[in-house]
């Protein structure tokens, strides 16, 4: 199972062995990771699972679609590598991926 490293806004990290096929958001919620809420359950409606993909992992995470891009345009604290974590489906290739969470989600 790929290892996902969640980095909180204060720099502390939590490691989760996640099932491939689930989303970065769901893996966080299932493991009680603070800072990713995922209120809409993953249908790209709420932007409460906003995260920053570590620059080294951006290519592996894929491209956001147009709805996600529009939502990301308007999130609090946007960054270059902002994504909605419910839209990133975990693959075996993501083993070791680092995901950071914005302060506004705490």
């Amino acid at each position, binding site marked *: 199972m790929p290892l996902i490293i969640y980095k909180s806004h204060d720099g502390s990290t939590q490691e989760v062995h996640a099932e491939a096929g689930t989303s970065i958001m*769901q893996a966080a*919620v*299932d*493991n*009680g990771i*603070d800072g990713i*809420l995922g*209120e*809409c*359950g993953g*249908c*790209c*409606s*709420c*932007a409460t699972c906003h995260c920053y993909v570590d620059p080294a992992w951006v290519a592996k995470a894929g491209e956001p679609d147009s*709805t996600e891009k*529009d*939502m990301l*345009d*308007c*999130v*609090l604290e946007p960054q270059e590598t902002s994504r909605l974590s419910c839209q990133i489906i975990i693959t075996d290739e993501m083993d070791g991926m680092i995901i950071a969470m914005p302060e506004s989600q705490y």
Partner: protein
Amino acid sequence: MSEHCIIIGASHAAAQLVSSLRQEGWEGKISLIGDEPNLPYHRPPLSKAFFVGEKTEDELLIRAADFYEKNKVDLLLGSRVTVIDRDAKKITLEDGAEISYTKLALTTGARVRKIPFTGSELAGVFYMRDLNDVKQTHKFTGPGKSAVIIGGGYIGLETAASLRKIGMKVTVIEAMSRVLQRVTAPEVSAFYTRVHTEEGVDIRTEAGVDAIVGEKHVEGVRLADGSTVAADLVIIGVGVIPNIELAESAGLTIDNGIAVNEFATTNDPDIVAAGDCTNHYNPIYDRKLRLESVQNATDQAKIAAKSICGKPEEYNALPWFWSDQYDLKLQIAGLSQGFDEVIIRGDSEQGRSFAAFYFSEGRFIAVDAINRPKEFMMSKRALTAGQTADPLKLADESIEIKDAFN
């Protein structure tokens, strides 16, 4: 006695409470009691992705099973609480077992409003609230079959869209003069009527139901005008009522829901409540609200957990909602009830993308954004920050949405 928090109702709010209690440092025991056999699951997909088979039962779970194990939660599923004894601080289960608590959380949600139509007991007639309801409907669905939906609210319309997706013939019966009358502006109702019609749904407004007819199973719905619409499946979606009876019989204050203060606490300081079952004060709208939404369940549960852990914080979240139908992503921020002006950005009469901004006495109060995530996101931020908006700028698409708020 050691600390024990019992949560009654395995709902959205319950799933959040468990997580928030542990995050806030609750070290005592946690028990979660639910009358359904399932762990807390996402209800919105029941009328959408789960209904059409795009999501499995496991994928509905809000949090995976091992989350409850890791957080040391005693699960009592398929079990119903019959009595709360506040003096003795214990609850009684259906089987007579008694369990003591130090803190109690009521996340009992809401149940469907049932209308005793003649024939509503026939096989093939359903309400859409529980996983079990939806699983049962699958015997009656299939391409070419007919469905009648009673109620043109969000649940009715989402179900209509799902049934079209699987190739069924769909008729929606609405008693009022337009669909979504209770919750949106006429422009938005007209839009949804147009899209559903384009997608092949027959929408009948100002139509009363006389009876559901059939021999052994449903065969049709007879309307008040005497005509009958054939149906292999009937789905009734006419609203929900809060589950307050347990709280009421325990002597807790009831006021269109379980009355809670800004800290999600009932009139008993050791009992909190969160989600659809509560009635609470919202400072943004300066009135009491009973909301039917995932947002409220989640956000209020966090406040309830803080109160249990002795770290009270005021609840002041902005209500928001969503509804997915066909290729339409509707996102709603705020509450539009009581609006006296609507500004449309984009074209609601053609295409499938616009936003309706609601005002009351010149103040911006809510938005219905259809395939307009930016309008939704910016409105949500503005409403949360207490900003209002310039109607002229909102209506002018040459002005960036972010520049319309002040």
